[in-house]
């Protein structure tokens, strides 16, 4: 069935004007229409936070749950009902602080979830405390003299948990966002999409370098599997190998030519270079960084049940009773 974005829209979003959540929501509606899964076979599950209000604006099945538990609740929904397409939506606090344990284990198990991480590097709903993705030294209401702790880098956490899919988009970049959402849906397994978004009230400008089109042209690279990693307004820059790492170089300078530029391989099982790409500060890597096929937990659970059903001779409760040592009292 062909859908339009309106088939997935519901209600009037209540985020602050200019919040990145508005942009992302519009892209999610469009992506779902293009993906074409029926709204009634789709569940959107969130935790708590500004971004976790999102399921209220979806015409699908949805749950707006408790702080940090979205990935765990989504895990149960998907494993119990594998026919459901499950989207899990969390902010950086919900997903990586209070929900960090569920985030890593959903990745490790490789549950077939589309996991959205809306990263504005701040706690918005509680009005402006630093988050686990705020940079060291970040000044906020709860860190008036600057934080003295290092942030998580979501890709590093995902890869450390043996995640098989990681993509990144900027909330204001609709085509880029829709592309990664569709890729996340196509990927069977836990798919993490980090969405860089601005909080106009408490952390304005946090992603300024890439938040508008002009900025992205200068400061971002759109990665495409199988294509040379070129970027810049005129593709004048490229990513080359640099010892054990990668670096951005200007073609024609220091003897670098296009031939030196690496070809992106999102399908490579070894995540070493993908991690290097994800962690670059300039340019910021956008698009699908890692997309590797692996068995999913929910498929394996179902397969194991079928396998054991074929092996064992008992298939209902009455037959189960008969597998015990039974005696008869006459």
């Amino acid at each position: 069935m062909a859908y339009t974005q309106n088939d997935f829209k519901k209600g009037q979003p209540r985020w602050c004007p200019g919040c990145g959540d508005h942009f992302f929501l519009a892209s999610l509606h469009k992506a779902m229409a293009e993906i074409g899964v029926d709204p009634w076979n789709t569940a959107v599950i969130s935790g708590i936070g500004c971004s976790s209000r999102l399921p209220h604006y979806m015409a699908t099945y949805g749950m707006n749950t408790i702080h940090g538990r979205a990935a765990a609740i989504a895990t149960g929904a998907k494993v119990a009902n594998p026919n459901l397409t499950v989207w899990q939506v969390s902010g950086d606090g919900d997903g990586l602080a209070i929900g960090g344990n569920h985030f890593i284990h959903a990745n490790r198990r490789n549950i077939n979830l589309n996991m959205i991480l809306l990263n504005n590097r701040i706690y918005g709903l509680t009005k402006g405390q630093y988050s686990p993705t705020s940079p060291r030294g970040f000044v906020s209401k709860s860190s008036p003299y600057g934080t003295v702790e290092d942030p998580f880098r979501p890709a590093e956490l995902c890869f450390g948990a043996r995640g098989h899919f990681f993509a990144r988009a900027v909330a204001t970049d609709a085509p880029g966002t829709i592309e990664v959402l569709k890729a996340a849906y196509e990927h069977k397994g836990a798919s993490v999409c980090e969405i860089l978004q601005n909080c106009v009230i408490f952390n304005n400008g946090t992603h300024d370098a890439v938040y508008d089109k002009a900025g992205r042209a200068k400061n971002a690279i759109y990665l495409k599997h199988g294509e040379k990693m070129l970027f810049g307004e005129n593709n004048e820059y490229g990513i080359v190998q640099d010892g054990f790492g990668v670096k951005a170089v200007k073609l024609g300078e220091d003897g670098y030519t296009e031939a030196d530029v690496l070809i992106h391989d999102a399908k490579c099982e070894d995540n070493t270079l993908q991690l290097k790409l994800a962690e670059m500060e300039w340019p910021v890597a956008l698009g699908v960084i890692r997309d590797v096929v692996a068995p999913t937990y929910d498929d394996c659970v179902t397969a194991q049940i079928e396998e054991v059903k074929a092996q064992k001779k008992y298939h209902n409760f009455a037959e189960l009773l008969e597998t015990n040592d039974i005696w008869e009292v006459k």
Partner: protein
Amino acid sequence: MEIKEKESVVVRFSGDSGDGMQLAGNIFSTVSATVGNSISTFPDYPADIRAPQGSLTGVSGFQVHIGAGQVFTPGDQCDVLVAMNAAALKTQYKFAKSDAAIIIDTDSFGPKDLEKAQFKTEDYLGEMGIDPDRVIACPLTTMVKDCLADSGMDVKSMLKCRNMFALGLVCWLFDRDLDIAFNFLKEKFAKKPGIAEANIKVIQAGYDYGHNTHSSVANVYRIETKNKVPGRYMDITGNKATAYGFIAAAEKAGLKLYLGSYPITPATDVLHELSKHKSLGVTTVQCEDEISGCASALGASFAGALAVTSTSGPGICLKSEAMNLAVIMELPLVVLDVQRGGPATGLPTKSEQTDLLQALFGRNGESPMPVIAAASPTDCFDAAYAACKMALEHMTPVILMTDAFVANGSGAFKLPNLAEYPAINPPYVLEELKGTWTPYMRAENGTRYWAVPGRQGFEHILGGLEKDDKTGAISTNPENHDLMTRKRQAKIDAIPVPDLEVLGDKDDAELLIVGFGGTFGHLHAAMDEMRAQGKKVAMAHFKFINPLPKNTAEVLKKYPKVVVAEQNMGQLAGWLRMKVDGFVPAQFNQVKGQPFVVAELVENFTQLLNK
């Protein structure tokens, strides 16, 4: 040889935790149950992970009560004590009656063994004040080695069969048919026939040793079987019966069974049991933590499964947040709490009833949840079935309480016929409501409807924020919140539960004994003993604790004296006082991590009567 006819006998197997006492005890229970005796068992594991061999903290015990008629408890003290080493004798002798027969392995009472067991002299019997005439002392280890000398086994493997020699001896003492034990071993070790054969050989040797050597010393006990209820039976532990109850309910409701769990003593066996039965379509997920166990189960419930999470007290602390979410979302969920000693890590392998108020109240906000407590190992089946039925039909999380004593103990379980169990009909949203349905629309009994994802036209959102009664949208309206709070409470209050049954002298009792959950057997045995002494005593035992049975106040106020006996500081008494105006009972409270002792109950209740 004197043959003593007895109504019931208690046997306690004890030894080092590596000595296989649980297996020996299990086989003996099965053999006894097979000939039609009633049984009640109590495994008493050491708390230490792996205490040094031969040490006092490493002793593992298994007690079984065998009766001609119905037995309700594993027994206060034993008639026969098997002590496989010096540490076992030292720590377990306190569980033996003054005239108990004691079987020891003299090979395990050497100088080093005695030192580890903290005996001061070599006269360990004298030190403990044990009459040597009551002791069947045999060089058990030597005899096992002799018996298996030709088997080609190494010494370590041979020594693993020591428990079977003791079992053989006990079987002789009780005139048991060894063939039943042999068949048990052949099945257990079907894939290792060599081990089965060695074990069988050693049991026979133990039996023969008793027969040939001690026929003039000890009594042989005979437990006849009476009051038999015809039928087919199996031995079942409380945890296994709980798992079976979940499976049966899922089958009856036509739903997939989902268990989200995290290993925790003493609840883990439920996870183990359910994980085996994939051929019944059971899905178990061993989660990353207790929180996820409950949260993932709630996700599974939303997605249309019969969802269960299993744990013990410390896990309930962690699950309470997601349980609360289930309360406000009004989704079915069964939370199993196999209680253990607390607070915090407390006494992980021991039994208490100290989580009752946590189950009733341990969540933020007004958060009513039904609470059901199983009375015995076999009752866990019915209690689990009832919990699932209640959760599914009333769209609510339900707490099912058992305890370490009930969970690890076992009893003879008459195989249930699922056709005789009540149907389970969840309130699925009716197709004709399409277009007008909102998530908190309620049926006549106050239950909201269940719209499972996959149904077109019923897309909706549930969540932890308060919702408008009519539209289901987020609402902070004060009148609406008050209304929703009352509706959630009224829904739970309206759940029908069976009336409280009064046992014993229900018309003219001078004392009513009140309890809940796993103390049923001990309280019943205490009542029986007092009535045998000519006293007028009745008992009322709560299985349904929230909501309380309709006749609760009537029963509690009918008798001149009432005592609430529980393994906590008075939690049920407090709950009843809150719910029944003017009810002020006497209390018997014990928090030792051990089952009640019937003799202590009788003494205490008798004093109360005489006051």
